[in-house]
């Protein structure tokens, strides 16, 4: 190194080179695929995936051994002059889950985006494999980027890779959805960029570690924090800034939807976490953190209720993503340490990140099985799913397991996340967020059960499958669902700040209660709000249920109608744009008030 580095955090650590590899390997894959042409893109992408997994495993080991963040200084230049790549437990965990989901999507997509011998090269497979690698490379850059401008570039790369995935099949609706997504995402990223200008103007550096030592609560910094937060929320599609998400995620091909819903929204979420917990933990204050969680709770309610009212499975899953994104933001007020008036990296943060990871695996599995059902039936109307449970048992099982994992059945990652959040709610004496955490599980249960009830019902006429479903594809969906269901058993202690005394598996009775709550509550919600086919309502037990729930159902449907109209309103540009500006002002005011 040309310049001996002062201080511990200013030197490349052993294993730091692995961070470079994690970014470079997918990018090299992209370049090779471009050069080698359409037919070989698939093989190159599939060859890159195990390599990426090995690199992530090596990073996991290196981090555990070093017991401190891995650092790589690009060109040997230390910040503020140079750029650093850093990986702490949080980033490594996210990288690992990204590699796993990308690998599973790669296996799943082989059937849909293959270029067999003797067939003409098509543009969609070529684009898909390259974009998949691009999403991966961009996400790894987001996770290891050590300064705010690198994160900006990584975020833009992620958007540019994700947008074309939406419109791979080139239908007009998906083109429109992609354009909406792109323009709204650009609005978000330009707000983020404005924030970085203000921070650079104030402190002369954008390096996360240096900034965290220098930031003070002056007006420019608070404005920057508010703008960056809101810009990132727009990219994460947190309610009420979600106008682009449902059409984009529901219109894309199944493999692409899985990547978009599971991974891409987590990129900007991760930067919100970095910004609030690492760059300026002392600045936002409790009010702004509460505001974030209020938006999250609103997202859970609106997203879940609108999901229950959808006619199509893919749109239901897209709205469920909306609700699950809300769940991720419940951790912010729970992580607030009142004694030091700053956000602390403790159990709440670990819970939020675990929830993000569980959602990534479970949602990818759900979109995959929905894609298989769609392909086999030729439609995905929820009321027309009868008999599919018998025709495609493995796909429906994958959906059910992913749903069980998502609603927090032990030993899933979502269960562990819920425990951590509940414990944090008790410790910080914010019982209302404990209610929101539990309600989130019940809402999740409602739409999972609605789909399963339809899928497991018998059909009017025997189900004829349009195409036979590939075993590989079913296996990929099932593997991801199982992964999500068993995430709670992994040893997270070395990587996430999990407090002692949280058991990965509760005693059997507690486990049963933990599962029963969301299932029973969800069942009630599904009966009240879901769409039921005429035939299900006609059978005798259906008639009894209909007689008893008739009037509460009418009231619930009226409420749901109001929420649906709210969602319609917010899917218009003017309303979403004004909500964005309003949120920026609110966050600025909340942060100013905290000082």
């Amino acid at each position, binding site marked *: 190194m040309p310049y001996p580095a002062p201080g511990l955090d200013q030197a490349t650590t052993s294993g730091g080179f692995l961070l470079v590899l994690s970014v470079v390997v997918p990018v090299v894959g992209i370049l090779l695929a471009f050069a080698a042409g359409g037919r070989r893109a698939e093989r190159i992408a599939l060859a890159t995936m195990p390599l990426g997994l090995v690199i992530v495993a090596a990073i996991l080991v290196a981090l555990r051994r070093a017991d401190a963040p891995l650092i790589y200084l690009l060109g040997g230049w230390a910040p503020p002059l140079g750029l650093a790549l850093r990986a702490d437990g949080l980033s490594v965990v996210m990288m690992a889950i990204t590699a796993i989901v990308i690998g599973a999507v790669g296996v799943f997509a082989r059937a849909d985006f293959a270029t067999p011998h003797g067939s003409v090269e098509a543009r969609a497979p070529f684009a898909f494999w390259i974009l998949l690698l691009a999403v991966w490379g961009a996400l790894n850059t987001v996770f290891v980027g050590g300064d705010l401008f690198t994160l900006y570039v990584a975020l833009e790369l992620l958007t540019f890779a994700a947008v074309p995935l939406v419109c791979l099949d080139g239908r007009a609706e998906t083109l429109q959805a992609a354009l909406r997504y792109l*323009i709204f995402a650009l609005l978000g990223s330009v707000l983020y960029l404005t924030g970085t200008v203000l921070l650079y103007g104030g402190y002369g550096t954008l390096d996360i570690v240096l900034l965290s030592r220098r930031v003070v609560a002056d007006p420019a910094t608070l404005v920057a924090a508010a703008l960056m937060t809101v810009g990132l929320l727009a990219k994460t599609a947190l309610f009420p800034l979600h106008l682009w998400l449902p059409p984009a995620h529901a219109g894309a091909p199944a493999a692409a939807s899985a990547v978009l819903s599971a991974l891409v929204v987590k990129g900007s979420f991760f930067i919100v976490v970095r910004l609030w917990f690492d760059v300026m933990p002392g600045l936002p204050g409790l009010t702004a953190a509460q505001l974030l969680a209020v938006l999250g709770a609103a997202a859970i309610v609106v997203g879940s209720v609108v999901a229950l009212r959808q006619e199509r499975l893919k749109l239901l899953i897209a709205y469920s993503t909306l609700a699950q994104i809300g769940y991720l933001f419940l951790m912010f007020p729970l992580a607030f340490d009142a004694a030091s008036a700053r956000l602390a990296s403790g159990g709440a943060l670990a819970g939020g990140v675990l929830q993000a990871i569980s959602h990534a695996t479970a949602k990818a599995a759900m979109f995959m099985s929905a894609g298989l059902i769609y392909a086999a039936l030729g439609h995905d109307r929820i009321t027309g799913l009868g008999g599919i449970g018998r025709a495609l048992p493995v796909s429906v099982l994958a959906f059910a397991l992913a749903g069980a994992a998502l609603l927090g059945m032990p030993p899933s990652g979502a269960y562990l996340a819920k425990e951590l959040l509940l414990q944090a709610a008790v410790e910080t004496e914010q019982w209302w967020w404990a209610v929101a955490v539990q309600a989130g599980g019940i809402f999740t249960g409602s739409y999972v059960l609605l789909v399963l009830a339809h899928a497991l019902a018998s059909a009017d006429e025997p189900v004829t499958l349009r195409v036979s479903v590939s075993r590989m594809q079913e296996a990929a969906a099932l593997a991801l669902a199982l992964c999500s269901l068993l995430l709670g058993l992994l040893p997270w202690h070395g990587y996430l700040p999990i407090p002692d005394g949280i058991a990965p598996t509760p005693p059997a009775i507690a486990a049963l209660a933990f599962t029963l709550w969301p299932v029973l509550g969800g069942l009630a919600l599904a009966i009240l709000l879901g769409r039921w086919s005429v035939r299900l309502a006609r059978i005798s037990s259906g008639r009894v249920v209909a007689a008893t729930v008739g009037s509460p159902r009418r009231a619930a449907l009226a409420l749901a109608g109001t929420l649906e109209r709210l969602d319609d309103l917010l899917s218009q540009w003017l309303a979403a744009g004004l909500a964005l500006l309003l949120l920026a002002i609110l966050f600025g005011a909340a942060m100013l008030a905290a000082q």
Partner: protein
Amino acid sequence: MSATTMFGLCGAAIVGLGLYGLITNPQPLRKIVAFNLIGSGVFMLFGGVARRGAAAGFGGDPVPQALVITGVVVAFSATALAVALLLRLFESTGSASLRDSMASAGTDPTDP
């Protein structure tokens, strides 16, 4: 008022104009132009910051200039991607509007 402040205020005004256009104008092409306007405003802010942070003997701090160059490249690629999407949309539907995408997304084209 110093030249730097003037630049900053002009940048802010341009960002404001762009935001107004991006939020209120229904046509995608105008939205794309408005996005570029916001970008120019932000780059002007960067210019002001570079001037203010200049060390003795320098005309400006070089780091913000490097950031602006990168930002211009990113904005250019974003614009190219958006315009390409818009052209494809126009080719396939004969109109370029962002309305009503909710009703039809996620439907199967072969579905009766």
